[in-house]
């Protein structure tokens, strides 16, 4: 076991770090992270409109007028329903920064390319197709995220290629650099916009009518079905995060960074269902996992609590006190490195097992509607547990579920903590 861990540390760790540091994944992650505050703010307005007080839906109209529900959710619509526009810009901007290109020019080029490609039509309720509009939602919201990501990376790469090969219009040296820079984008922009146009026209000839529809049907939908929206996908996500953390890789941001575009579409479907007064279709969202990581990856708040109240070793008691406060905000490096859990054969067992147990319990509690499902709103992952469960599900059942989760995790961790604690306590006594 120790040999295996050592091998993992020497071989797998550098590899995993290289993957985590891969430039496109990095740009994807950083691009989304830039936008998350906007989604959180948008969500706050949704939470206000849907706050779970009986009769609030009637009262808000009574007090503020019939238009109130539509008006108060405008910030949510302007963020979630046009998300693809922001994503294509943000990812391209981050990738351009990595290449040390002119980031804002690159971002705008990607945005325009996306606008050329995405279908700009809207079907009215009577079935009439209105053209030349940018609709809220549809390909500009969460449904268009995958295309937004592809376009952002493609355009940035092509632009970078042109710059590197110097296939640009060169201005004489007397021309100010800002003007020269603007001109240097001319040939790449012309090429890219033409390419987008050709792609659009080609896809019009297919049954999909657009690249967006094609990618959605061929990639986004299947991936969402297989990876994101079933109990096995949930378990795979959960285990991949704890396994990577087991060798010391900050995996939450890595795994979430890849799956977020798929989750966001599921979240939006839930939000739409709420607005339409229908039952929520999806269980797996990013917040489903936030609810599992009570105190941080591996549900380690349970560990901190056990250490505070049950540890005999002085060092572990102190560690519990140090880890408690950050744990309330789901930050757990003190536990992971201090106990330690990382690369410790014994503690890795409950660290990987407890979240699996909770994932299964939570999934089926939501599947059988014993507990409310995540509404889709985005709240900061640093929100303290229990309050977090309430806000994510918009129901007290979510808060209770997190208490149950904490107890389950505690029971799984307890015997293992007892073992390392006894050992440590013995060491401390013999030292004296």
């Amino acid at each position, binding site marked *: 076991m120790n040999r295996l861990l050592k091998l993992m540390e020497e071989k797998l760790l550098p590899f995993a770090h290289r993957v985590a540091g891969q430039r496109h994944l990095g740009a994807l992650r950083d691009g989304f992270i830039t936008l998350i505050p906007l989604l959180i703010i948008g969500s706050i307005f949704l939470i206000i409109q849907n706050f779970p007080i009986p009769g609030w839906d009637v009262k808000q109209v009574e007090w503020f007028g019939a238009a109130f529900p539509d008006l108060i959710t405008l910030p949510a619509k302007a963020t979630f329903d046009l998300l693809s526009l922001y994503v294509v810009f943000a990812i391209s901007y981050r990738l351009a920064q990595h290449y040390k290109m002119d980031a804002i020019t690159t971002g705008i080029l990607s945005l325009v390319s996306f606008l050329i490609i995405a279908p700009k039509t809207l079907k009215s309720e009577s079935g009439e197709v209105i053209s030349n509009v940018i609709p809220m939602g549809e390909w500009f919201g969460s449904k268009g995220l995958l295309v937004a990501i592809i376009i952002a990376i493609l355009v940035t790469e092509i632009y970078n290629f042109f710059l590197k090969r110097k296939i640009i219009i060169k201005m004489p040296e007397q021309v100010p650099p800002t003007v020269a820079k603007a001109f240097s984008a001319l040939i790449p922009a012309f090429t890219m916009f033409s390419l987008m146009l050709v792609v659009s026209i080609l896809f019009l000839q297919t049954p999909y009518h657009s690249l967006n529809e094609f990618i959605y049907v061929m990639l986004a939908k299947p991936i969402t079905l297989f990876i994101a929206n079933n109990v096995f996908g949930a378990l795979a996500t959960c285990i991949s995060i704890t396994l990577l953390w087991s060798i010391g890789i900050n995996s939450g941001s890595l795994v979430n960074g890849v799956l977020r575009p798929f989750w966001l579409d599921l979240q939006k479907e839930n939000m739409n269902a709420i607005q339409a007064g229908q039952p929520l279709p999806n269980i797996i969202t990013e917040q489903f996992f936030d609810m599992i990581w009570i105190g941080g990856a591996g549900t380690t708040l349970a560990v901190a609590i056990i250490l505070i109240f049950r540890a005999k070793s002085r060092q572990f008691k102190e560690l519990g006190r140090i880890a408690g406060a950050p744990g309330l905000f789901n930050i757990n490096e003190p536990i992971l*490195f201090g106990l330690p859990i990382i690369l410790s054969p014994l503690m890795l067992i409950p660290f990987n097992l407890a979240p699996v147990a909770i994932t299964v319990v939570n999934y089926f509690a939501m599947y059988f509607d014993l507990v409310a499902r995540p509404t889709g709103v985005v709240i900061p992952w640093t929100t303290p547990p229990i309050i977090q469960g309430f806000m994510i599900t918009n129901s007290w059942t979510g808060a209770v579920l997190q208490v149950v989760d904490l107890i389950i995790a505690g029971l799984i961790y307890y015997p293992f903590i007892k073992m390392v604690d006894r050992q440590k306590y013995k060491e401390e006594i013999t030292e004296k």
Partner: protein
Amino acid sequence: MKIILACDAGMSTSIMVTKMKNVADEKDIAADIQAIPLKFLDENLEGTDVVLLGPQMKYTLEKIQTRLADHNIPVDVIDSLDYGMMRGDKILEQALRLVK
């Protein structure tokens, strides 16, 4: 004295900076302590006296040591237990030892 803590992007490194600053203030040591992601190390080297790596970055130690040898900046890895227990005093001591 400028001390750099380099790690992935960890949340707790910034908590560590606060702890170390408190110790430095108590002991009247003028120290500029910063936590940065490892990939931004090169941009932040100016005036740096010592670089400490987060325990999870141990495998990069050799590479970074050779890179920083030209700048005469010492590098070491923070002990994983000190990191977990948030021992600002121990880690500050380690930094001071390396500078000497």
